[in-house]
């Protein structure tokens, strides 16, 4: 059977249900690794099983999963389908998680291609399939090239050419051991590889920014009951959605809303107030809120500034995500000073606001955007890497470089290290679509004077 491929198989719409579909040898192993069923365990009977997708203890989404063993499937291979309801962000995370666990991102039309290759589609469908696959392959190729915006192509080519230099040096020494060539400088090699790796990591970080712009960010409002969460939600949405009242614990379910923050789609979730409580319904809500906060890109931690700092707020301040600590009710006498708050809230900078008289609310919007995009990046510069395939290739390239570095550390010989470097070089090449099998040899002869 084939290696395992994975893709989001329904058109991605905002807030819609999406499916991550995998096909191939390892689907069962991968799903067992990331899926924790709530009750029934996943069996080969194609039933939908309810549970959670979990990564390193963090819950990514609640899902319905079905396992379809071969051969009576679309591709005639084992198939797993993960139905997610949490929108585009968890969908994407789940896809990335399957890739991390060993699946490969499916080529355009690859499920159909496999169905065809494995004899699933009959002859009369062949022509139609051909048109479909060819047009999708060509289209996606064109799209991929279009997505090579701005400096990305140059950036990748610059890294490729540095790797090519290193490869040519190694390969020349291997193929011409008796020539008067400069020896490969083994002391410099790790540093050279590390520099390239760092640049790839930067591109990947930049890619994360691109992802936010393309697919949106998940933002969660947390705080104690009655700190002003729902008012904040209403302010951000500019309309009333949640019931706003003075009775603590009104928001028991999670209220979600999409909005646009200066061009960035944001899904905002208001959680039940977090406080130890005896109310069973509310306990559920609090649990949900905690889980939700852990999965978010951004946290808005709202505090009632008119009171002393509570134990729960201290706990919440330890959540590691970016975001803001909003000290609300600045129109009332304050329970602690801004200076103290600044010393205390290190993960998320504090800002004193008042949702009653509107103090600092404009500043809040600006700071939010800054938090989302990273303040160190100029606003005019669009993100370079937005294509998930490109991200995947960059990740592969970086993994190969790490392999090369550890091979170097373990005293592996050149011909081994060269395998990893070549892999990294090829991964980068598949982004720009450049490169030919003779490129290394051509480069060797351009750079070095060789031969009898």
């Amino acid at each position, binding site marked *: 059977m084939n*290696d395992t491929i994975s893709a989001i198989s329904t058109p991605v719409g905002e807030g819609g249900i999406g499916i991550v579909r995998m096909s191939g040898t390892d689907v069962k192993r991968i799903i067992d690794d990331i899926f924790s069923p709530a009750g029934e365990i996943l069996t080969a009977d194609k039933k939908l099983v309810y549970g959670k997708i979990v990564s390193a203890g963090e819950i990514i989404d609640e899902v319905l999963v079905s396992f379809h063993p071969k051969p009576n499937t679309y591709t005639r291979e084992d198939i797993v389908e993960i139905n997610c309801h949490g929108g585009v962000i968890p969908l994407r995370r789940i896809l990335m998680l399957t890739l991390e666990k060993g699946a490969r991102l499916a080529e355009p*039309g690859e499920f159909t*291609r496999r169905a*065809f*290759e494995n*004899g699933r589609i009959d*002859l009369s469908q*062949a*022509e139609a*399939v*051909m*048109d479909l*696959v*060819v047009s999708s*392959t*060509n289209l996606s*190729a064109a799209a991929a090239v279009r997505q090579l915006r701005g400096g990305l192509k140059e950036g990748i080519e610059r890294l490729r050419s540095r790797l090519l230099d290193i490869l040519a040096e190694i*390969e020349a*020494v*291997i*193929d*011409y*051991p*008796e*020539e*008067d060539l400069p020896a490969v400088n083994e002391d410099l090699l790790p540093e050279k590889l590390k520099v390239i790796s760092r640049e790839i990591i930067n591109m990947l970080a930049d890619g994360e920014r691109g992802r936010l712009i393309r697919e949106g960010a998940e933002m969660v409002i947390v705080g104690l009951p009655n700190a002003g969460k729902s008012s904040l939600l209403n302010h951000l949405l500019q309309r009333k959605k949640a019931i706003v009242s003075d009775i603590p614990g009104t928001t028991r379910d999670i209220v979600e809303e999409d909005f646009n923050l200066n061009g960035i789609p944001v899904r905002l979730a208001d959680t039940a107030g977090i406080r130890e409580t005896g109310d069973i319904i509310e306990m559920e809500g609090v649990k949900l809120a905690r889980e939700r906060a852990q999965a978010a890109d951004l946290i808005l931690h709202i505090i009632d500034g008119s009171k002393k700092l509570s134990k729960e707020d201290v706990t919440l301040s330890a959540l590691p995500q970016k975001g803001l600590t909003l000290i609300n009710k600045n129109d009332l006498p304050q329970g602690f000073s801004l200076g103290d708050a600044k010393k205390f809230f290190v993960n998320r900078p504090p800002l004193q606001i008042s949702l009653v008289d509107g103090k600092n609310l404009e500043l809040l919007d600006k700071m939010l955007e800054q938090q989302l995009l990273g303040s160190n990046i100029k606003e005019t510069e669009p993100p370079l890497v937005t294509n998930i395939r490109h991200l995947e290739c960059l990740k592969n390239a970086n993994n190969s470089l790490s392999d090369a570095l550890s091979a170097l550390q*373990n*005293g*592996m*010989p*050149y*011909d*081994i290290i060269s*395998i990893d470097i070549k892999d990294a070089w090829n991964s980068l090449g598949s982004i720009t679509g450049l490169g*030919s*099998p*003779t490129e*290394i*040899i051509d480069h*060797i*002869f351009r750079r070095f*004077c*060789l*031969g*009898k």
Partner: protein
Amino acid sequence: MYLAGKYDVIVVGAGHAGCEAAFAAAQMGKKTLVLTISIDAVALMPCNPSVGGPAKAHLVREIDALGGMMAKIVDKAAIQIRRLNTGKGAAVQALRAQDDKKIYHKEMLSALTETKNIELRQALVEEIVVKDGQLQGVVTETGAFFCSGAVIVTTGTYLRGKIVIGETQFSSGPSGYRPAANLTKSLQKLGFSLQRFKTGTPPRIAKSSIDFSKMAIQRGDSEGRGFSHWQERIPQREELPCYLLYTNADTHRIIAENVSRAPLFSGSIEGRGPRYCPSVEDKVMRFSHRERHQVFLEPEGWDNPEIYVQGMSTSMPEDIQEKMIRSLEGMENARFIRPGYAIEYDALDPLQLKPSLESKIINGLFFAGQVNGTSGYEEASAQGLIAGINSVLHLDNKKPLILDRSQAYIGVLIDDLITLGTAEPYRMMTSRAEYRLILRHDNADIRLTEIGYKLGLISEGQYQQYLSKAERIKKAADQLLCLEITPKEQIITKFEMFGAGTLKGPISLEKLLRRPQLTYNHIRELNPSLPVLSEDEAREVEAQIKYAGYIQKQLRQIEQFHKNEKREIPEDFNFNRIKGLSGEALEKLQKVQPISLGQAARISGVTPADSVVLLIALEKLGRQSR
């Protein structure tokens, strides 16, 4: 014209490709005729007296593993053998031999004449005879018609050969032998297209006129290890050293001042030369920042007054050549025996060949060696062997032997030639092999001997030798996996001497062998119950264990690779009828006529989308025929 004889296979040319082709065909039971321009030019080494080096040595080992001749003759004629790349990993280590050219020729000649089924004859072939599309045989310049069902053309650099030395030009084969002036016309008439290639050689200098005292000596270091799998050590003989010296500012000045007289730059050479063997004028002009270039002095044999000046290949006028050579330290009084020269010759566009090396136009007509656009003795021999084998399989109506890129450098070589073609003489390099780690110098027999045995080229004795080697390797590897060592005092003392870290708890021998400083024999010292292995065998075990992760990775890639190689394209497949191919892909596919989807995908100009179109068309065809 008269009928001079009937044969199964006729080999045109008795160079490195021709000899291997003839041996293979004869050993596989076919009555084989070898025609050569001169009996004295059998297995001639017209360029350097050296065989092997990375990738090239791999080819020689593979030829040997399949039952070919080259390695055995190289070992017999070796005046010294060196190990190269010893510090660079198992995949790229290789031997290189300096050989006595006359002994090489003599040994190959007597092997040819002693082999059953081979007839060797001096004759200049002028025509390939084809009647109604059927191959008939060949006709020589004296009107002899030799009839056969298969012909293998191995004309090397003889086809319309032209030697250039400065302003002087004349028709000639290599080393002053006659050229084959008319065969090109016959090939063109049959529909073959040829290209003009060029190569060159340095001057030969009288040994007695050189002062070696100031030069660095280079000796062999293989300790009796040779190329052939079938003898453990080659008999000890007196070794001849080589010498290393450098060009200098004077040499470069002489070249620069006279570059207008260099045929390469004046335009009187039209042929494409290899980047792999540039002439010294080329090196000096293209890499003008280099202050010096290496020059090796290589003796051409024991009882041979000629010294080959490696690094000084040139087609400069003779007077300039003398000045250049005499500018080298220790060569101030150099006496010339032969001048360096460039040679131009006709070579076939290899895209006209099938992977079996049979031509696409004429059934039974094979091409091998330098005529296919390669450079090097090793590349020629490898093709000769495959063409010889496949000529027999063709006569017997059997499927041809096609080695793929994951099996052998020979497979890489032929696949490159017939899939990509070549615009310059092609040299084998390890960088061309994507599965380099699997294609090791040491495991050629493990990879290929089974195939050679089935073809009848490997004797029963050799086969048994191979089987027991494979068995010993497997046994050792298995034992390493299941045995453990506990750090007792005695063991620790021994271990500390290896300088490979410390031993803490019990550890499997396999894990221990992964430490870079340790060899199989180290481990055996700790646990003498492991089998005694030869050097080759121990290295094989070490490679398998030390690089296991990488080997596994390449094996997985090979699995993927085979999927597309196994999707065969029928020989009469009509690419024209497929909808959706790009224009460029269609043109290339029609020209190359790939035999598999994998090969098709390697053609430049065939995009992934084209491969998908092709895949679907093939699948459709397959289902229709089912």
